[in-house]
């Protein structure tokens, strides 16, 4: 069992044109910066990206939009990106908007080996169009299918050589359900440690879900909305 790869280029070596990829993070928080750069460098096209957001113009998934590598985004909120808007309005880019909880739970369903889940979000709205509705205890629910994504790319704070992952603060977000919901999961971590160096009680994602891991470099960790209060 050797899950450790050299770098992002090696980690994404078998991602080809037309691939469907889950990408972890919320806004710019906890995004897999190294793998996004490697995908841009590799130039793979016609990608379907399952990601809560689409980055900003010059960072995150925005970098892959700029190079026109993305065919379709499956997201809950995409409002922070002018190039995104341009491609969407010109018809170059397809977008499937999904309620955020449904997006997370469709990842989780894949992680838990469940083909579908019943959720209330979207009942009576245009999100329900074409979906199966069933009543449980007097309440209507929509049938939502588990994602079937060949690749998931996530960023964790720490990882070990067995693929066990630990996240920091609000970076667990979509990284955790996606790490567990992808067929092949690639994890980039700020610090890669030997097996045994992480307290087993502190593992967030067990290594069984992780197939490739590497220590990323030069994390920018850009802040999207820098908000502060005065010291007084």
């Amino acid at each position, binding site marked *: 069992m050797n899950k450790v790869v050299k770098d992002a280029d090696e980690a994404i070596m078998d991602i080809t044109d037309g691939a469907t990829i889950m990408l972890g993070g919320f806004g710019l928080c906890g995004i897999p910066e190294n793998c996004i750069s490697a995908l841009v460098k590799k130039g793979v096209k016609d990608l379907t990206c399952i990601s809560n957001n689409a980055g900003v113009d010059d960072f995150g998934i925005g970098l892959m939009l700029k190079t026109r590598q993305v065919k379709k985004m499956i997201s809950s909120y995409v409002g922070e990106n002018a190039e995104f808007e341009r491609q969407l309005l010109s018809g170059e880019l397809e977008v499937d908007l999904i309620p955020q909880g449904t997006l*997370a739970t469709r990842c989780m369903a894949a992680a838990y080996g469940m083909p579908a889940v019943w959720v209330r979000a979207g009942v009576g709205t245009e999100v329900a169009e074409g979906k199966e509705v069933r009543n449980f205890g007097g309440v209507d629910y929509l049938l939502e299918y588990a994602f079937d994504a060949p690749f998931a790319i996530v960023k964790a704070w720490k990882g070990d050589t067995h693929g066990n992952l630990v996240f920091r603060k*609000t970076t*667990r977000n979509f990284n955790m359900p996606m790490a567990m919901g992808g067929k092949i999961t690639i994890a980039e971590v700020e610090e890669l440690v030997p097996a045994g160096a992480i307290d087993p009680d502190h593992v967030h994602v067990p290594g069984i879900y992780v197939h490739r891991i590497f220590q990323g470099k030069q994390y920018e960790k850009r802040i999207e909305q820098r908000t502060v209060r005065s010291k007084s």
Partner: protein
Amino acid sequence: MLDKNGIARRIAKEVKDGYYVNLGIGIPTLVANYIPRGLNVTLQSENGMLGMGPFPVEGDEDPDLINAGKQTITEVPGTAYFDSALSFGMIRAGKVDLTILGAMEVSEEGDIANWKIPGKMVKGMGGAMDLVAAAKNIIVAMQHVNKAGESKLLPRCSLPLTGVKCVKKIVTELAVLEVVPGKGFVLLERAPGVTVEEIRKATAGKLVVEGDVPEMDIA
């Protein structure tokens, strides 16, 4: 008539000791500033946090610690982190006591529209559909009329819906109203200096006025 902070101040009175509260973006975020000291209230941020604290002081910003509006925030004693699936799990399971969010339109049946204007750029619903479908208690914080001067309290919503029959209460710059399906917008309180007639004029849906309507206490 209230300003945004006045609306937030009035909504803060709906927050009870021991509540877990989810605050949406905009006016709802301001509510946190007016929750009375001494109440034990925990703020939930749907990107994966219970126990959201105020903005950090300059220099203490942490890119790994943001709220659902992508703003830098801080922890409080007792904060817990989790992932997005669990976050919406606790929302769906009804563990969050109160959800406060903004709206473009609310109908007299309690339907809400706040995510899409057809023909304009659509940014997405984020977590709003999940929140309104699940929360036991939803309060809408919004202006009574839109920028074109049209009422946002309607017999039926004209914009694509976010959720159906879910809004319980509305606080605007003019009034506090309870939404009672089958009845309409029941006027509970008037903003200081605002008359019932002014509220009636700004409400396109059915306004129910029962007896004397008191002025809000926003002290």
